[in-house]
């Protein structure tokens, strides 16, 4: 993010559970309306945010650990940041066995978004940023 440009933000904190993915999409709808996103781009963003949150839910480990979602409004782009408290890990052998039906999340996020960023939070945890250009 550019330090010269303070950004407005909208936040959502939910329990890290698959059942909350629908609530998260309603939040993306709200943000998309505020940012006046085209419906096509809103759909892409909903999918990318869902993928990031589904991963966070799966890997955040602790039951009901909170999942933090923040939407940053910049003049030229919208950034969703999804933070969880689990370390980034590689899929285990069981997962790898599910031939060709897993491992779509990261490629899908990268293909749908203008930018995908995965950061290790110092002190543990993973933060995923999804960026959509508004121009």
């Amino acid at each position, binding site marked *: 993010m550019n330090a010269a440009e303070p950004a407005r933000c909208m936040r959502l904190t939910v329990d890290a559970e*698959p*059942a909350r*993915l*629908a609530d998260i*999409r309603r939040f993306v709808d709200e943000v998309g309306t505020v940012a006046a996103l085209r*419906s*096509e781009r809103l*759909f892409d963003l*909903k*999918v990318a945010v*869902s*993928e990031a949150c*589904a991963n966070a*839910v799966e890997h955040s480990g602790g039951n009901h650990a909170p999942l933090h979602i923040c939407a940053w409004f910049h003049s030229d782009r919208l950034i969703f940041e999804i933070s969880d408290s689990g370390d980034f890990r590689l899929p285990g052998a069981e997962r790898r066995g599910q*031939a*060709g*039906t*897993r491992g*779509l*999340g990261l490629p*899908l996020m990268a*293909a*749908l978004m203008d930018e995908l960023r995965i950061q290790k939070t110092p002190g543990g945890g993973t933060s995923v940023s999804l960026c959509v250009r508004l121009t």
Partner: protein
Amino acid sequence: MQVDSTRLLDAPLIEVAGEIDHGNASLLTAAFESTIDEGADIVLLDLSDVTYLDSGGISAILAAVRHLRDRGWLGAINPNANVRRLLEIVGLSVDNGFRVFADRTEAEKALGESSES
């Protein structure tokens, strides 16, 4: 999400309505598995009322396509523009175990051609 199993001509037809995501895609997987276990070579999936789909649902579709590919195909009916675009992005539009139909009439025509051959 709601999943109903019915038939179109001789083929099993799964009708889904609502949003398919990581939280509920197991229902779709179960519907596919029971039709495939019954020996179906061609399975239809009506997506007319599906407003959202993510890799949870795509994985379920990919697994069904993988099972059907060598003996038949999975036919998706009337996905909305966004859902159709997503199916293209993940490469399903060039998978020979997967077809997309604009409506049930088109799907019926393809079923007829498949049973002739």
